[in-house]
């Protein structure tokens, strides 16, 4: 996948651990946030 736009990921839910591992191994560039508010702040900071 050719990803040029900055991306913030905040992942939660069923099988979240497996999901996180897939994301970590994807070699895609993104920022990870823990909570909703933190995710919003990271998005704003990237703009």
């Amino acid at each position: 996948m050719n990803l040029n736009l900055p991306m913030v990921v905040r992942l939660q839910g069923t099988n979240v651990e497996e999901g996180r591992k897939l994301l970590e191994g994807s070699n895609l560039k993104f920022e990870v946030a823990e909570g909703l508010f933190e995710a919003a702040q990271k998005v704003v900071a990237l703009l």
Partner: protein
Amino acid sequence: MSILLNEQSRIVIQGITGGEGSFHAREAVAFGSKVVAGVTPGKGGTDLDGIPIYNRVIDAVEKEGANASGIYVPASFAPDAILEALEAGIKLIVCMTEGIPALEMVKVKKALKGTGSCLIGPNCPGITTPGVGKIGFMPNFIHKKGNVGVISRSGTLTYEVINMLTNLGIGQSTSVGIGGDPIVGSSFVDILELFEADPETSLVAIIGEIGGNAEEEAAEFVKNKMSKPVVGFIAGQTAPPGKRMGHAGAIISGGKGTAAEKMKAWEDAGINVVVNPADIGKKVVSILNK
């Protein structure tokens, strides 16, 4: 005894052989729910991990004593699935399906009247009572047994709030997603009434959203009938009028149903309204510690 789901609940999963039905039936069993049967027309006589499958809901009632149902069938079959559960005498019917036409729901609501059966949803994440079980698709690992009741029109925000509470060490009595459609089986008021009467619930967290007047009705109820503290959040504060925001029922129409109006109605009713969803947990803690 907890509201809606309790130790006597014997669950039948309608649509248990489908992808969603089988996945969430297994998740429910892993959570400790008493799933006694599944129903898929034409697949009667088979089983899912030993859970017997029948062709009709009435068979699950007569042979396995089912008294609660979780519906995971496509929208075109879901209204009939609800009616079938109703006719079989199921008392608690939870329909997760999104996309049921409003006119079909009008007919279902009419059929429900006076039966004593309770419909939760459609277009909802279901019900979870920690320590008892769940019907629906809220993630298993977020819950913790406790005394906060959670009600929401939004699925995702329901588990956001539950997760937030659990991370702060606060458990839930029962969490109910009432659904995001314009016509749903149970309203905020129906569930608030149950929580108000429930000795295991000491505070209610309620998540509303734009569109319709369910929040205004909830405000009226909280103001006049509720003794327990309520913490509330309204989703859609930045939603433009006339645009449907994700849920079929989440639309500001004719200038009515904005987040600002609803937040005002809730504040006037004495509900502790938070502006940022990330603050719901902290607000609950501050009230419980008073």
